[in-house]
């Protein structure tokens, strides 16, 4: 009987061991588009950009840049990105190695422009602040749907309203008026 030393690999399939660090894969069901992975990634294999025309945030993972350090998996707060055991990645075309996840952005409730938060980020923020007092949550919920500019305007007018010595009814401004559009 002959015994063979050589692995029959390309002719017969094989699997990587369980702790093998293969290509990372983003789970589009879980990703909230926070960009923590892009910050953690040492070679910038993950990039995040907002497409304000279409109103989506694009999380782009370029496996041909990835060194499989698992920093992204460490950083992800939604447990969305995971290193898989996939290793058969060779390809003649580098574009094949790109994964893009698009997550819708929130539309500003006042001016209608896209904000810099995704719909899922807001959902996540709501889910982890359930312990806050109801009044505070209500105050917060007035802000999460606004763009940066409207948020500042709202904060300013809320402060203005809360300080009695400034408060003259004739000069009181509302968010819509300051911004030039009524909601």
């Amino acid at each position, binding site marked *: 009987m002959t015994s063979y030393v*050589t692995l029959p690999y390309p002719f017969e399939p094989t699997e990587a061991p369980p702790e093998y660090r293969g290509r990372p894969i983003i789970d589009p069901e879980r990703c909230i588009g926070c960009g923590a992975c892009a910050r953690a990634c040492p070679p*910038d294999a993950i990039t995040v950009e907002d497409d304000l025309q279409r109103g989506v945030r694009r999380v782009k993972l370029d496996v*041909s840049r990835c060194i*499989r350090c698992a920093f992204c998996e460490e950083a992800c707060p939604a447990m969305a990105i995971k290193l898989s055991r996939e*290793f*058969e*990645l060779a390809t*003649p075309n*580098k574009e094949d190695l790109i994964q893009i996840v698009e997550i819708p952005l929130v539309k500003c409730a006042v001016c209608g422009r896209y904000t810099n938060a995704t719909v899922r980020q807001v959902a996540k923020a709501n889910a*982890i602040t359930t312990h806050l007092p109801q009044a505070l949550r209500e105050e917060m919920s007035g802000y999460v749907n606004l763009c940066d500019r409207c948020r500042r305007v709202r904060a300013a007018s809320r402060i203005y309203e809360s300080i009695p010595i400034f408060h003259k009814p004739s000069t009181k401004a509302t968010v819509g008026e300051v911004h030039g559009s009524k909601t």
Partner: protein
Amino acid sequence: MGRKLKSIWVFHLNTGACNGCDIEILDVLTPYYDAERLGVKLVGSPRHADALLVTGPLTRQTYYAAKKAYEAMPPSPRIVIAVGTCACSGGIFYDSFSVHGGIDKLLPVHIYIPGCPPRPEEILFGIAQLVGLVNKKVKQVVQRASPELKTEPLERLWLDLREETRRVVGYFDRDEVLNTFKELVLKAYTRYDPRRSLEKLVDEYCSQTDDPRLCFVMKYLYTRFLDILEWYKKSHYNIEDMLREEAWRRAT
């Protein structure tokens, strides 16, 4: 590459690799992986080579050497194989002052084999693809996420605990360890005096496991869990009632 390749003679060119990829190439040539089955032969001069096996990012130092090696190859088929993330795109060195990027900045690449370093099977897969034994398995994906997000009840607590687990457990086992602890917590909260019974459950777990590290993590998480509860209490977050509810919901 119009015609099918049969046996490729390769010249190994290191343009600035950290040597990780070169070691893997060495591995591929050992009898265990035996790339010579696929017709690959390592040659000592680019003049004899059909293919250039490039590892490492394209550095300024090696730019002209790589160019010369490519020009010294016979005019056809002049295949370039990029092995490793560095050769594919510059990898971890991509923004270094002395690095141009991947080898594709200089030469037309026929096959990219990413990985840092790629395991020998990955390199074999790449070569097998060159000689037409297998087809590529990856393709670009663009996924549009739906606006809904699945969230768990008590998400905040589990996230805080995960943050604590991060301090002592590596990424590979973290979720598993955390899930074990989660089950202990939910079990304890179906009982009278959950804190005491959680302590007992952790002790029980420690006596059953033969891995002292797991025992340490569980005890650590237990103390952190109590701290988190205290902290929640200060911010008027009455989590214990919610935990009890959730525990009963799961138990029934």
